[in-house]
């Protein structure tokens, strides 16, 4: 007798758990006129739950040593490498050619490694000790902005997604991600990679759903500190920029499509979601003579 295949239920990822949307709704994206599965149609309440999870995880994640975050990002790449077969089939199911899917997976793994390497270098390269005129030790260093909303690229469900998440979490931010609406499969499978990669629950939260419905809830939320927007609708951009004013969210827009390009690997994407902090500390000047040796 032929064995009946078990089909996978795609759920969302909040606080390290995989709930269904609280709304109970679903949608079915089509590829070549075939539905690829029943996907959670997340609601405003899901966004709010995810922000709570991201906020509670943020200080712990930022409080880890940079070297530790570096290892955890590397660990994501290790686990992803081991699950490439699943991504390969999902990317193909979402319409990619075999060769392109392989290329996308390779680039995704390497991108994680690239940003893993920055965790314990970014403040070293971009921080400074400032030669102020008074007798003070004065230094500036970057700290993570906080909770970042990510509107992930629509056209690149794995590499695009990871290119947006990696620089945001590298410095100690946590995030709430709205996945590609029409190609959501890889994003949920990537959540399963995160869940088994030593990434604390709540650091990355991934929702699937309708951009039109959810965008304003990202934009309006007073506990979201920044938004990384990866699509190209001028209306959406204007809407986000307007909504962001209430709590002065930082809005970063990156609409370029070719995620295989090396320009997606640079530390400035990390700095976009960091704040500069300057500390002043007095230096006693009682030894006027200095040392003669």
């Amino acid at each position: 007798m032929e064995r009946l295949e078990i089909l996978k239920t795609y759920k969302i990822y909040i606080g390290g758990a995989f709930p269904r949307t609280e709304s109970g709704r679903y949608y079915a994206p089509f590829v070549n006129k075939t539905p690829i599965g029943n996907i959670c149609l997340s609601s405003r309440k899901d966004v709010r739950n995810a922000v709570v999870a991201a906020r509670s995880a943020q200080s712990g994640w930022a409080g880890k040593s940079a070297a530790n975050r570096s290892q955890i990002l590397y660990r994501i790449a290790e686990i992803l490498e081991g699950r490439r077969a699943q991504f390969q089939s999902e990317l193909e199911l979402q319409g990619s050619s075999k060769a392109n899917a392989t290329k996308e997976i390779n680039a995704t793994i390497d991108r994680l490694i690239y940003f893993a390497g920055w965790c314990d270098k970014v403040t070293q390269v971009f921080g400074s000790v400032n030669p102020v005129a008074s007798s003070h030790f004065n230094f500036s260093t970057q700290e993570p902005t906080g909770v970042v909303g990510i509107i992930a690229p629509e056209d690149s469900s794995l590499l695009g997604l990871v290119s947006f998440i990696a620089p945001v979490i590298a410095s100690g931010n946590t995030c709430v991600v709205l996945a590609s609406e029409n190609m959501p499969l890889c994003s949920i499978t990537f959540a399963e990679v995160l869940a088994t990669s030593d990434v604390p629950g709540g650091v990355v939260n991934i929702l699937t759903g309708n951009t039109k419905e959810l965008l304003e809830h990202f934009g309006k939320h007073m506990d979201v500190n920044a938004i990384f927007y990866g699509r190209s609708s001028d209306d959406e951009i204007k809407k986000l920029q307007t909504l962001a004013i209430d709590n002065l969210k930082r809005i970063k827009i990156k609409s370029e499509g070719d995620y295989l390009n090396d320009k997606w690997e640079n530390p400035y994407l990390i700095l976009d979601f960091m704040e500069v902090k300057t500390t002043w500390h007095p230096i006693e000047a009682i030894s006027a003579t200095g040392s003669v040796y």
Partner: protein
Amino acid sequence: MAKKNKKEITLDLSSDWGLAPAPESTSHIKLKKKYDLFIGGKFVKPKSGKYFDTINPATEEVLAQIAEADDKDVDLAVKSARKAYDNVWSKLSGKERGKYIYRIARLIQERAREFSVIESLDGGKTIRESRDIDIPLAAAHFFYHAGWADKLEYAFPNRKPEALGVVGQITPWNFPMLMIAWKIAPALATGNTVVLKPAETTSLTALKLAELFQDAGLPDGVVNIVTGHGTTGSHIVNHPDVNKVAFTGSTGVGKIIMKAIAGTNKKSTMELGGKAANIIMEDAPLDQAVEGVINGIFFNQGHVCCAGSRLYIQESVYPIVMRKLKDRMQALVVGDPMDKNTDIGAINSKKQLDTIKNYIKLGKAEGAEMYQPKCNLPKKGYWVPPTLFTNVAQSSTIAKEEIFGPVLAIQTFRTIDEVINKANNTPYGLSAGVWSDKGSKVFNLTSQMKAGVVWANTYNKFDPTSPFGGYKESGHGREGGMQGLEAYLKFD
């Protein structure tokens, strides 16, 4: 238990407070009887045909035989490094190079306990130290530098960094595996290939690392390990096809190497001796300071180039600091490095034992007053109890020369000017320590110290992101951090 004495009350923990043995198991380690040279990705017999013993300094038992590389062996190693550089390593992208280094880091983490045990057996350091510091830090160095391989242009904007080629590296016996990591990790990250000679008394972890390079699939010849004594090192230094020499060791040998490469185009980094001042101000948190002084001089049996071997105590707190220091020294456990209770392990070699004993004799002869707590030292092996000297002058030999053992020379001072001058009055300038609860005073002192690393209210802290290296005769160049990369690069 407190024991009454006519003069003063002192702690004597040795008689009443026994600790149950807590030995680390050695059953899981794999050592060969005989180790050959690691050249071109393979273990090869030395052309010299010679081998020497490596022993456990805590038991004087032979652990294995190590090959002695002669000039022909070194030539083969350099040729193999050159070939690997020309044909493979220089053609890889930074990204792919970095992935090899990440692999090495991960493999060290996976086999960390095995390396720790071998490090302690071969070198005499406590298992607690090798397990918690040396080996994890070595892995961290590889991990940190792996990330630099494809990011070098951010460390040196507008300078187009390029690899040097083949680098010769000579490492010391005090932190065998850690110093190898400090050398190999940045060299590989910056795109060089390596010929490395580990110290003759502690070659084992280097050779285990060679096995690990094979497991990592590191291309043949990218790292070559030639074991042997000083002459083997001199063959590396003098080889015409070596582009750079990186050395960690004594200032004396460092100067010989500098002389040998003068007039050649070889670059160098020298991480040499030290005679660090550790300064306790009267407003310091004294218990914390005493702990820091203990760690500063007795960590790794005092075999530390940055050891806080000169202690300066402000006069007003001298009596109380001395009492706390002596009490703390009573509680130190000296003995079997493999026991997890041990604080001070075995002296690395007979030769070093003799050196330290000589300095102790000299200290007494010059009129300084010695204090050692009661210790039951094992019958076999090389041991020195923790030792301090008072009545020391700036001109005392034990206050001027690097002893490289658990021997502390103590002086006092009255004013901040006085201590700054005393602390800096040395040809060395590797490190210093300052203890005070007042931040502004701390920063004053740290900015006045002529030393490459200054610890404030802490001591002997190391991190891959933090550059290490000295002023003056403590050497030149830095290891670790962004600055450490420069030593392995050339620029337009």
